[in-house]
Structures are given as structure tokens and as C-alpha cells.
């Protein structure tokens, strides 16, 4: 398939892998930020092509994984209500809250629907004026423009039975939290290409300067990732700490101006709790005052949950890049995709799920 196969070409991948081997003279630790990149690395076995002195660790860029347990509990509470049509992207349905997941709400009669776009939820709201239609607005900067657009259109068209349960997080503050941690091991980043397609990469420039790390905006196909890694280790070897753009076929320095404006109009930056990591200041998005009536958490007057994670789950350490999935004693034993202890095993983009699916528990 055009625009895909050429980036999965074995010969090209081999050339980048060789270039990395020729460049690396000492051990380096690089984090790929996005869960989509983690999946590509494990799915295509890209780490097998790298020198053993180059250590890849998997970052917090899986929106499903970092959504706090409390929010899943809130989603479950809303979805269980009689008069509600609860809409969500597919992979949120299987994530266990502290007691149940959205699939089990659906099984016990709740109207829970899998959608591809929040604008479809808006259409459902206008067709069902007597129902409350709620969209579970999860994601990074990538999904924020579509959520903002749905809210804006609902407002303009006077669709009052539509609201969103917001759990939006932002990538640069999470990267800064990792860099500022005394346990940090990350020496270079592959930044998430899709996030930068929307937001551009000017936000990463002060991070690269302040923490003296190279950051390479990188795509998701095998040769993208290997080229991004090559650019990153080249900077490390040469002592440079710049922001470079490997994913130029999609990313511009200023991002997508129109999308950014829509996001800014509807959302404001707020502190957010990250599952497994804790609260990070200025790391999320919440609805602006003008649109606050469309905030499902307020509309349904939700209880604030205090949920406890399984003590056996180390997903927090995995999301911060301090541990790898196969270093967890529960991995593949107590914790499997059928019985996940934490979100990194549930989500298709979670690092634990990727290890389990492509490498097995053997």
C-alpha cells in the first residue's frame, strides 16, 4: 500500500539499523514517547536490529494507559444511568475501573456505543433529543481538535443534550516531569509525530535546551523509527541537543494552526492526574468557562472517586520508563490481557500488551 509499504521496506530499515550501529560508540538510553511507536518497535522487532548498547525505553504516550482509574469509574457511573447514551473510542471499553469496565455496563443493559469520531456522538445527540449523549473525551493533543470541534458545533447548533467527560493530557509536561525526576535515565527522546502534526514542535525547544536532551519528532513506521533513532544517537554522539524533525512529511514546526486555534478556543490548560504517575501541573486540558455546561463531570454531579491500584501492578514505573514490562513479576502470570491488573496491559497501545502480544509470556 502506497505511503505505508515503502516505510516498512526491509532494505531501508536495514540501512538505518547499520547506520545506527556505525554511529554508536557508547551506551545510550532513548525513550519513544508514543504508544503507537512502542507497538511498532515490538511488532516489527526493531530493537533486535539495534546494537545492545542502545537501550529503548517506552514512554507514557498511551492515552488509555494514563487515564486515571477514578475517571473510568466516573465513566462507568454515567454510562449506567437510565437516560444516557455513552459514546467512546473502542479501546476504552475494556479498561477496568476499580469495580467494572464499560463492556460490563453494556452487557447489563447500558447504552454504550463505540464511535470513531466525537462528531458522530453529536449526530446521535441531535437524533435523540430526549437522551443525554456523553462522549468520553480521552487522548493527547491528537484527539483534542476533534473533541473541541464537537463541543463548538454543539454550542453553535444549540444541541443541549450533548456533553463530554474530559480526560485530556498533554505530552510536553509529561516529558518534563520525566526529565526533572531524580531517577531519570532518559538521554534522548523520540517525540510523538501525530501530536506534533497538530501542535508543531516549538514547545519542545525550551525542553531540549533546559535539560540538554536531543528530541527528534518521529513517525510510526519501521523506517521512521529507525531513522529517528539514528538522528537521536547522532546528536548524542556529537554532543548536540536540538529538536529535529524526522516526520517532515506530516509535521510542520508550527503544527496545524487551525486545529490549535480550535483547541485553544474550547479548552484551557489545567493540572491533571496521570494514572501511575500522579498529578502533573499544567499537563491537561479542561473545558473553558464558556463551555463548562458541556462538562459531563459537572452535569451529572459525579462523586469524586478515590480508587486504589493493584499493589502488584508496576504500570507507573513502566509509564515513566523506569521498568520494562518483562521485569514485572506479575507479567504474563497474574496479569494478562484477559485479566489485566493495570492499563498498560489493557490498551492496545500499552507497553505490556505489546510485549505480551508480540513476544508472548514465554
Amino acid at each position: 500500500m502506497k505511503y505505508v509499504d515503502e516505510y516498512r521496506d526491509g532494505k531501508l530499515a536495514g540501512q538505518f539499523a547499520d547506520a545506527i550501529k556505525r554511529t554508536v560508540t557508547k551506551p545510550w538510553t532513548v525513550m519513544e514517547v508514543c504508544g503507537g511507536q512502542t507497538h511498532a518497535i515490538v511488532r516489527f522487532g526493531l530493537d533486535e536490529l539495534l546494537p545492545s548498547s542502545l537501550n529503548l525505553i517506552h514512554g507514557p504516550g498511551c492515552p488509555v494507559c494514563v487515564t486515571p482509574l477514578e475517571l473510568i469509574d466516573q465513566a462507568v457511573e454515567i454510562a449506567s444511568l437510565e437516560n444516557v447514551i455513552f459514546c467512546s473510542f473502542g479501546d476504552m471499553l475494556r479498561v477496568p475501573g476499580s469495580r467494572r469496565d464499560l463492556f460490563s455496563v453494556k452487557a447489563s443493559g447500558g447504552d454504550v456505543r463505540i464511535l470513531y469520531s466525537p462528531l458522530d456522538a453529536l449526530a446521535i445527540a441531535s437524533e435523540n433529543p430526549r437522551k443525554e449523549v456523553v462522549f468520553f473525551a480521552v487522548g493527547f493533543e491528537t484527539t483534542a481538535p476533534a473533541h473541541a470541534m464537537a463541543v463548538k458545533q454543539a454550542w453553535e447548533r444549540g444541541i443541549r443534550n450533548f456533553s463530554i467527560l474530559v480526560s485530556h493530557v498533554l505530552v510536553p509536561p509529561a516529558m518534563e516531569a520525566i526529565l526533572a525526576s531524580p531517577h531519570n535515565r532518559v538521554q534522548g527522546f523520540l517525540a510523538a509525530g501525530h501530536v506534533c502534526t497538530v501542535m508543531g514542535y516549538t514547545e519542545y525547544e525550551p525542553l531540549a535546551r533546559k535539560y540538554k536532551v536531543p528530541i527528534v519528532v518521529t513517525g510510526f513506521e519501521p523506517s521512521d523509527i529507525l531513522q529517528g533513532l539514528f538522528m537521536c544517537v547522532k546528536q548524542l554522539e556529537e554532543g548536540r541537543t536540538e529538536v529535529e524533525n524526522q516526520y517532515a512529511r506530516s509535521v510542520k514546526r508550527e503544527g496545524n494552526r487551525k486545529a490549535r486555534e480550535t483547541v485553544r478556543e474550547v479548552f484551557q490548560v489545567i493540572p491533571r492526574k496521570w494514572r501511575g504517575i500522579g498529578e502533573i501541573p499544567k499537563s491537561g486540558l479542561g473545558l473553558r468557562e464558556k463551555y463548562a455546561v458541556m462538562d459531563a463531570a459537572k452535569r451529572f454531579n459525579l462523586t469524586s472517586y478515590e480508587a486504589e491500584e493493584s499493589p502488584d501492578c508496576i504500570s507507573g514505573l513502566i509509564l515513566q520508563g523506569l521498568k520494562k514490562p518483562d521485569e514485572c513479576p506479575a507479567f504474563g502470570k497474574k496479569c494478562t490481557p484477559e485479566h489485566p491488573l493495570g492499563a498498560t496491559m489493557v490498551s492496545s497501545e500499552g507497553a505490556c500488551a505489546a510485549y505480551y502480544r508480540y513476544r508472548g509470556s514465554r
Partner: protein
Amino acid sequence: MTKKEFSMQCPLPVRDYPRVLLAHGGGGKLMHQMIEKIFASSFQNEILKKRHDSAILSLPSSKIAMTTDSYVVRPLFFPGGDIGSMSVYGTVNDLAMAGARPKYLSAGFILEEGLEMETLWKVVQSMADAAKECGIELVTGDTKVVDKGKGDGIFINTTGIGVFEHSQAIEPQSIRTGDKIILNGDLGRHGIAVMIAREGLSLESQIESDSASLADLVMKLLDLKVEIHCLRDLTRGGLSSALNELAETRGVQIRVEEKSIPVREDVHGACEILGLDPLYVANEGRFLVFVKAGDADKVLKVIKSHPLGEAASVIGEVTKEKDPRVTLVNQVGTSRILDMLSGEQLPRIC
């Protein structure tokens, strides 16, 4: 599809009963009328004509194959097929996978009150056409009507009986180390076609289900009289589930090459957009042949000369007899485990 654009109208007087009523399952005159005019008139044969409680069958061999499957699909009509033809092909294919020639079929219908009679008629006509094409006779059946809201239009269960005309044991236990694995065509069309129709996704290209009877092709392969060890059709769970089931059942390792697995460009594109892996998507007209390495070329040649096998290829082989697993060598040249999915594939956030 033009042959299935029905010019014939439903023979029940539509002005009287344009929709299925609970009474159509009540055992009285209405039910009798529906059975006679819709079902019996469509599936005419000597056995059915006797109107007995059971179909009485004379079979040429004492060893027979029997299989059953239930069909629930929404929407009932999708590009490339419908629930009617699927309920025949699916069961016929399961018989063919055992190396049996499909002979007889039963059908149980669960109809939802309010179903349009015209829709039922179209489904039944499609079943009758499919049965005729496969050379299988529908010899017994049943109809029930459930309250509105308790069904999804039509559910169909079919059970099939097939007979053996050879003495080969075509089953997972016959798989041997060194066997070549042949796939008869591109993957993922049925699952994606149904998903697009169900979700109302607007993609530019028209993807049609691959729903088809594999019986004719399988019978041609059996005529070759070569060492075919196992056949398996790829339905729910796709290629990946089928390979894993067989590796597990027979206790062998299987290696397949991703670049030799055909996936049509539009299906690949839809999968990339929806975040699905075509190796896990359902098919209704695809199957695997496990064949002794020396016979693989002959088998491949016959499959490729059949309309249902033009894109066939050897996708891998059975490598070892222990630690059952399926390994996929991907385009980059590295390999990974091809696992069975734990549940359904879920569309991803981003």
C-alpha cells in the same frame, strides 16, 4: 450481484401481511401459510416434499461429516453477500474443510416480530440460490418468531451433512513437520465490508465480502489425490486464530511470511485507518491448505486456476514438533509471535 436483484415478489399477499407477526410462529394457519409459500416453495426437493417430522436420508457411506453454525449479522445485506447465502456457504465450507462433499442442510430461523416479509423472502431466495450453487439440499427446517426487540431481524442456524468419497484423514492431527501452508487469496474483505456497512463509514472504495462456497475448489483439490493433510477456513479471528488453533491442537510450530500474505490495497487502507490488523479480520471465502511439501506446487497450481484462488500463495510452513506457537516473519525481516486475540479487535483512539 445483479443476478440477486430479485424481480420476484414475495408470494404472501403483501397487503395482508407485510410484516412478520407473532402469529406466524404460532402453529396455526398463518404459520402454515408462511412455511408453504416462502420456505417450501423455495427449497423444493423430494425429501422436503414428504412433510415429515424428520428428513429421512440415504447416504452412500457410513462415515459422514456433520457441522452446525448460527448466523447473526448486521446489516442483513452487505456488499458481496447477505445472511442467507452466508448461512449456506459457511456450513458448506465447514463440511468441505473436513474433505466431505456437502449433501444435506437443515435451517432454523428465529424471526423478530415486525420483520418485513419482503426481507425474509429475499433472504430465503438467496439461501436457495446458494444451496443450488453448492449442490446441497435443504431437507428440514424450523421457524420461531420472537417479540419485537428480542431479536435482530433474522437469526439463522444451519446444520450440514457431508459424505466422503476418499479415504484421506484431513484433520489437524494429520499435519506434519515440513508441510507447506497455502492460502487461497487476500484477507480481511468480509470483516471490513460488514464493518463499513454497519458503522456507515464513508470510505471511497467499495469493499465487497469474500463470502463464497469453497466446496467446488476443495473437491478439485481432492481429485488430485495428493497428500493434503489439513484444511481450515478463516472465519472469525482471521488467519491468526486459525493458525494458532491448529498449532495448539497438533502441538507444532508454524512460521509464516507476512510479505507472502495477500491483502488488497483498499482493505489494508481501511485497516490502517481503523487501527485493525488484517491478519485478525474475518473472512468468509478463505482457507488454508496444509500439504506435503513435495505436493505444494501441484496444489497451488489448481487453486490458482480457480476463480476463488487467483491470488493464492504459499504463506509458510510447519517447522517443528514441540512448544506450539506461530511466528510471523514481517516485512522488515525480523520475526515475532503471532498470537490469538484475547477478545475482539477494538478500534484505537489514535
